[in-house]
């Protein structure tokens, strides 16, 4: 796989075709769990892991797929991966799995994973599928982390509360107080805050895209000095 391909796949997952902000897939866990930065990051990492494992398996077996069994086989692979990760979290990250509750098993229903298996991994070699899974998973986790951090700061007035659940006892005092008063804006922690926060993120991304497109058009009109145009 060429380096330029990898770069394109990364750009696709993190920005151009971000699962959370552009494809708007997997919104159920995205909206439900993003009430603190740690919860968001944890679910994002679990989703990333599921994407990587299922992407690798689907890609490795890509020559064997027939239309009749493709979807059931993908769902079987994804569900097994999620169950394995759920059991591992219960065993080794017990407090965190209590906090995330039903949303770890529900990763099965995250459309992003089936969509990447179907649209990418089943047609591409293993190395490209690995990069794609990492890029899409990182894109999803980043949205969860940013949304969770925003809602936590506005709603609770803290950042990284409960970090010890993910990083061990040493992280117990990582919590950063962000607001001078005790009670934050309640709306941000409640479900409507998730929708509003996601809407603001989508709008912000759209504004950045429009701006870069405009400046891209301007610089495209005149030859750029860095790359001399070929005659």
């Amino acid at each position: 796989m060429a380096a330029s391909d990898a770069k394109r796949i990364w750009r696709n997952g993190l920005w151009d075709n971000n699962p959370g902000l552009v494809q708007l897939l997997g919104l159920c866990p995205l909206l439900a769990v993003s009430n603190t930065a740690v919860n968001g990051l944890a679910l994002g990492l679990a989703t990333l892991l599921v994407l990587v494992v299922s992407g690798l398996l689907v890609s490795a077996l890509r020559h064997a797929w027939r239309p009749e069994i493709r979807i059931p086989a993908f769902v079987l692979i994804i569900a097994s991966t999620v169950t394995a990760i759920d059991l591992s979290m219960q065993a080794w990250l017990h407090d965190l799995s209590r906090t995330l509750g039903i949303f770890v098993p529900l990763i099965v229903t995250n459309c992003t994973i089936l969509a990447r298996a179907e649209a990418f991994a089943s047609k591409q070699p293993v190395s490209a599928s690995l990069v794609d899974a990492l890029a899409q998973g990182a894109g999803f986790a980043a949205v969860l982390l940013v949304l969770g951090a925003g809602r936590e700061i506005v709603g609770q007035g803290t950042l990284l509360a409960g970090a010890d659940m993910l990083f061990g006892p040493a992280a117990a005092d990582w919590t950063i107080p962000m607001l001078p008063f005790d009670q934050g804006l309640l709306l941000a922690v409640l479900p409507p805050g998730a929708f509003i926060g996601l809407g603001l993120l989508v709008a912000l991304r759209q504004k950045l895209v429009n701006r870069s497109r405009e400046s891209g058009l301007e610089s495209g009109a005149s030859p750029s000095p860095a790359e001399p145009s070929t005659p």
Partner: protein
Amino acid sequence: MPDASRWRPLALLGLIGLGAAVTLGGIDELTRSTIDDQRRAYALRAVSAILAGRNHDNDLLDSARPIDIDGLEATTVYTARLDGQPVAAVFDVTTPRGYSGDIRLLVAVDDGGDVLGVRVLEHRETPGLGDRIESGRSDWLEQFEGKSLGNPSRDRWAPDRRDGAFDTVTSATITSSAVIDAVKRVLATFESHRNRVFAESGPANANGPD
């Protein structure tokens, strides 16, 4: 060989299913004892913390027994003993009367029927309002410490918004009422079945009459 190729997808699906079953079976085997340990440790941490330093020398988790309490669900009682003498009982109860469903509580009661402490284990109350019953968010639960069925009297076991003797969490009268009601029910059961609560555990019966 058109027939053989028709069966091939099915065989592949079967193989994937088999692979998934074997893998998950292995992971289940690998994690089961750790998950059990974690659950026990979690329960033990919560129950020990609520006993507020009362000395005891028995294994709290081994003392766990089911108990029926009118109006509460999924109730378990742990008994703490020192030299075989009962020190306190910790009730793990779930009340269905919360504002948005079940609230799971630990209620510790000492030998004489006074509340040692109350902790919220699980709930789905409104973030920012009802969740202030959590000990990490306010000291609301501390008002139960030292209270008993006679102090305040039975008919005053209610939030002050409903003319009771207990503080109400602001804008969460239903949540407050559910917790107060659950503690009251635990105390009533403890009072009427005190001997059963302490007698049913292992050492008291196993040694037989002296």
